[in-house]
């Protein structure tokens, strides 16, 4: 059942990304502003990191700038757009902060942990898969989205699962879980800093396939209709979560509470419809959140 639902999500995501990509130079779609939730902010416990951030009036959030549909910022945009961005806005509102109080910090897959541990950002929402390895270094909670790794190949390719690619190069992004997924299935992961380079390498035939979350791949397949297609079952499960610093464990419960209220009051669904689900297709059920580790 979940599988079918995910497919629907992916298709809608694909359409959304295509639509976004059809915009003119300097698209007018800048996302929305989320108002500060003063009640939630007033309830923040004294002495907690959340309270500190709320009082400082600024929150630093690490996001991606190069993933259409999730976190993307065009050359002339001031504010990034995408699903990660919308969730980040909701979290900020729970601190009593307006969208304009958010300081968007670009992260690449490689530097998300250092950014959190050094305190350069307070939160990371950068298509950040929850893994045990990462949880050793930073705090992660959620997930606020579940997706899985698939393959993007040329339309005339015979490849239909990761097992067909044993010993071959498969492109993905350095420092991502996707590249580990590729290596675990016997293919050789080669990496660039963003997915669009990989798309190019698939198009020109240097690599037979690229692999990452299905939601991202569908977008590229739709953009290059007739040239590229997404194949295979999801051979991993990516649980996209929120990253916070381990030094501030109280953040976890607050993030979970904020996400739960976003699930309940429909703002999570709104965020989805505004970005990945823009085509109007069905919004999935919110995922189940992990328990926070006992403090």
């Amino acid at each position: 059942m979940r599988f079918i639902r995910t497919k629907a999500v992916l298709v809608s995501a694909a359409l959304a990304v295509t639509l976004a990509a059809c915009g003119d130079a300097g698209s007018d779609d800048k996302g929305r502003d989320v108002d500060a939730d003063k009640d939630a902010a007033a309830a923040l416990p004294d002495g907690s990191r959340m309270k500190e951030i709320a009082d400082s009036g600024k929150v630093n959030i690490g996001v991606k700038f190069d993933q259409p549909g999730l976190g993307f910022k065009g050359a002339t945009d001031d504010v990034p757009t995408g699903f990660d961005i919308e969730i980040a806005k909701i979290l900020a509102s729970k601190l009593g902060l307006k969208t304009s109080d958010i300081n968007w910090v670009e992260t690449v897959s490689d530097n998300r942990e250092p950014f959190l541990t050094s305190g350069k950002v307070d939160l990371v929402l950068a298509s950040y898969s929850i893994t045990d390895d990462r949880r050793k270094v930073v705090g992660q909670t959620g997930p606020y989205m579940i997706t899985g790794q698939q393959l993007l190949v040329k339309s005339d390719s015979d490849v239909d699962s990761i097992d067909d690619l044993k010993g071959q190069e498969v492109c993905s992004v350095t420092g991502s879980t996707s590249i580990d997924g590729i290596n675990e299935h016997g293919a050789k992961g080669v990496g660039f800093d963003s997915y669009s380079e990989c798309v190019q390498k698939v198009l020109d035939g240097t690599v037979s396939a690229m692999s990452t979350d299905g939601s991202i791949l569908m977008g590229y397949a739709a953009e290059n209709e007739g040239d590229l297609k997404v194949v295979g079952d999801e051979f991993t499960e990516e649980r996209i979560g929120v990253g916070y610093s381990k030094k501030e464990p109280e953040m976890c419960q607050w993030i979970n509470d904020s996400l739960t209220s976003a699930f309940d009051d429909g703002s999570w669904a709104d965020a989805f419809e505004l970005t990945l689900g823009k085509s109007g297709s069905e919004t999935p059920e919110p995922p189940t959140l992990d328990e926070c580790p006992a403090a």
Partner: protein
Amino acid sequence: MSASVLYDYPGPKTRARHRTYSVVTVVVLLAAVVWFFWRLQDHGQLEYDKWEAFVTPDYVRVILVDGLLQTLKMAAFAIVFAVAFGFVFGVGKLSEHAWARWPSWLVVEFFRAIPVLLLMVFIWYALGIKADNSAFWAVVMALTLYNGSVLAEVLRAGVLAVPKGQSEAAYAIGMRKTQVMMLIMLPQAVKIMLPAIISQCVVALKDTALGIYVVAPGLTYVVKQVYLEFHNQVPAILVVGSLYILVNLLLTGLATLLQRRYVGEKKQLDVPMVGNAATRPKTIA
């Protein structure tokens, strides 16, 4: 061009042969250019929507202001700091005191032997990550350390190139060591060094492109945003490449001018690992 001593003044036969070579070269080059544009056309790379971003005022402004200007700023900071760094360590390497000479030598040799990209990544992770704009300063610092070390070497060679009689004369009229260096040697050395310093500016400017690996601002970054939005890698590469070449050629022209003005047709300073951008004196070729 008959000035070359490598070959005789061509006779009628040779001239005919050279004409053939010339024609073949021209044909091959023209064919290459035509093929290049034909392939671009074939892939739809010459269509308006691929180039739209580079003629839309908003984007042009971003490319020039957030791109080119940032790149030039990084290069300018790097070169100014590098000159200071080079000055300190170049004089350090010339010092008569071992305690100053050896550390200077070590620092200069270390930063000259490692790739500037390795340095950049390290600085980015290590000390830069807390600061705002860390990638910007990672690029500036990496370029400073590398180019500064090269310039230290240039300065040393420049001072050594000042005729010995100059310092001897200075000592003879009773100047002290520091005075000889500051008043006699360095002013002359700097004059000899100018073209080499500008060549190093070209190197620094080119290396700012490495900033793409540490998500630094600048031309490469902005243009990457543009091609992520418009899927126009090929035009993007052509535009960014041309901009770099243009600015570098302007710098090289400046180097040539300074060379003529201050150094004359004398042989240029010969320092290993320095890009010699300026023209060379005429010799057999």
